[in-house]
């Protein structure tokens, strides 16, 4: 089983990258689960034709009990991808990090992996490793690999550096390791040069180079990923190549 956690600065395109990567694995015949770990609960919406799944936190709020079966909090999307969202607490109250831990614990109780037996699990995590809850996806038995999404923007690289340092800090703990950077281009001046300099300085590989593309927005407006809508386009091919890279690595 390939288990990947995707981190990066808020608004950098993590959900777009995660959903397209999920769709790419699905197109390659793999059984995929995507778990959105952001209180916004919008990670999987483009795998579900714009019809969102009920987030775990919403279920707890609405029914005042824990879900009894996986189907209570999961929905199948494009290519059979099982979509789950942790969701978040009432805005301004509660604890979102705790929400992630609770969700993971519930999924364990529901024997998600044993029942569904996925080939690939993707965790789409909120911006930064801000507390214990947001580090939960990289703990032992969850993700094995971390992908950091960044552009050449200064703050995106700053966040990428923080995430990389946080993962390094857990070196003694058998946590996930950084697999590489996904360069999500934003048409920044000397973008590739900046990202490559950061990658080299930190001993990281740029494992995918996603060009800025209006096609991504076009398909997202229709509630789809570009990998679903137009797999032949070069952007989609980047995601398919990244999925292949993971599969090769796994072999």
């Amino acid at each position, binding site marked *: 089983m390939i288990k990947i956690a995707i981190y990066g600065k808020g608004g950098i395109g993590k959900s777009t990258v995660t959903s397209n990567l999920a769709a790419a694995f699905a197109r390659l015949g793999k059984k995929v689960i995507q778990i959105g770990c952001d209180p916004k609960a919008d990670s999987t919406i483009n795998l579900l034709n714009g019809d969102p799944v009920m987030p775990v936190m919403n279920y707890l709020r609405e029914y005042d009990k824990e879900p009894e079966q996986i189907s209570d909090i999961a929905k199948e999307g494009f290519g059979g991808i099982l979509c789950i969202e942790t969701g978040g607490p009432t805005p301004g109250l509660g604890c979102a*990090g*705790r929400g992630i831990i609770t969700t993971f614990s519930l999924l364990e109780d529901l024997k998600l992996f044993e029942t569904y037996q996925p080939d690939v699990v993707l965790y789409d995590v909120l911006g930064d490793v801000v*507390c*214990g*809850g947001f580090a939960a996806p990289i*703990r*032992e038995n969850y993700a094995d690999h971390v992908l950091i999404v960044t552009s050449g923007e200064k703050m995106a690289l700053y966040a990428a550096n923080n995430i990389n340092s946080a993962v390094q800090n857990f070196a003694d*703990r*058998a946590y996930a390791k950084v697999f590489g950077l996904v360069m999500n281009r934003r048409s920044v001046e000397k973008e590739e040069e900046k990202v490559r300099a950061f990658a080299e300085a930190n001993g990281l590989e740029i494992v995918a180079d996603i060009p800025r593309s209006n096609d991504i927005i076009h398909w997202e407006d229709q509630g789809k990923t570009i990998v679903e809508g137009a797999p032949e386009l070069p952007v989609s091919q980047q995601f398919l190549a990244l999925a292949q890279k993971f599969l090769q690595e796994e072999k």
Partner: protein
Amino acid sequence: MKQTARIISIYASDTAGVCSMLYELGGMTIVHDASGCNSTYSTHDEPRWYQHDSMIYISALTETDAILGNDARLVDDIVRAAEEMKPRFLALCGSPMPMMIGTDFDALATELEQKTGLPVFGLHTNGMNSYLNGASQALCAYLKRFCIEVPKEKKSVNIIGATPLDFSLNGSVGSIRSWLKDNGYQVVSCMAMGSSPEEISRAGKASVNLVISSCGLAAAEYLKKRFGAPWVSGVPYGKSFSAQLLNALELAEKTGICQSPHAARTGTKKVAVVGESVTASSFAAALETDCGLSVRVLCPQALQPSILADCDSLIDCEDSMAAAFAEADVVFADPLFEPVCPRGTIFIRHPHEAFSGRCFSGEIRNFVCRELKREMFSL
């Protein structure tokens, strides 16, 4: 309100279960919790505290540590304490605050193992689950680390699941040992009262295992998987039931099939015993066979409901317990249940240390191999 206790007490927590199970095994049990809670784990729930030394370490977690995720202080303190006290192993367990901030005890165990060179295991406790859960986890983790390969011997047995939380210090566990020896069994170890760590490490020698409380079930399953010995659950209470239990041990050893003879009851709602599933169910079986009473068990906490009889019930809230008491003519339960017992139902005091701590420990009787008679309970 479900799972709410307005009147009665609550059972000892998972953390207390860990401390109790590991008490005699020479390790240091580290409870990641605010200072001031030591007495709950180590005196109120632990009658051995005044007789035997044990290393129970409370981390004195502060609000600042929680906010800052100051695991480094915890690790440094534990390393220093371990250097000073030289325990055989370290066991880490949590309380509500680490649960809220998501402290990763498995990861801390990995880190501490590298820093101390000692065997370290992280246990998933949060102070809000049953003592049975904590004791069960602790024993499994211990056995996985310390059991060695040894040749099996016929008619040899481990006693699994012994803690004062279920058996107090009234001689019951010693009586179980004597009963086994008197019937030709060699007792390899008793987990975890009265046996050395070396004896427990040789648990694989046993041809059969006797599980005397449900916190021993997971460990017995582990030993079955690893060494092939079947288990029998039950406590030899009373005269007739202890004979049945002995037959079950022989049958299990012969066939390799696990047995729960205490579950072969067809009780009615008229007589109820409240307690931990294996001990209460065995006591109910003894009342049935020795006194001719038809008894069902009301079990507030069960790790494996399948070992209960069909007539028994899992009851996890005070209101349901009161309703079940109202259906009974006679109830055997810890004295702290008495306030929810309706008038007209005969309440027989049957203290349980995991529920009322030291309050009534002097009243806890040793019923092992002792013929039960109605007059013993004024019935």
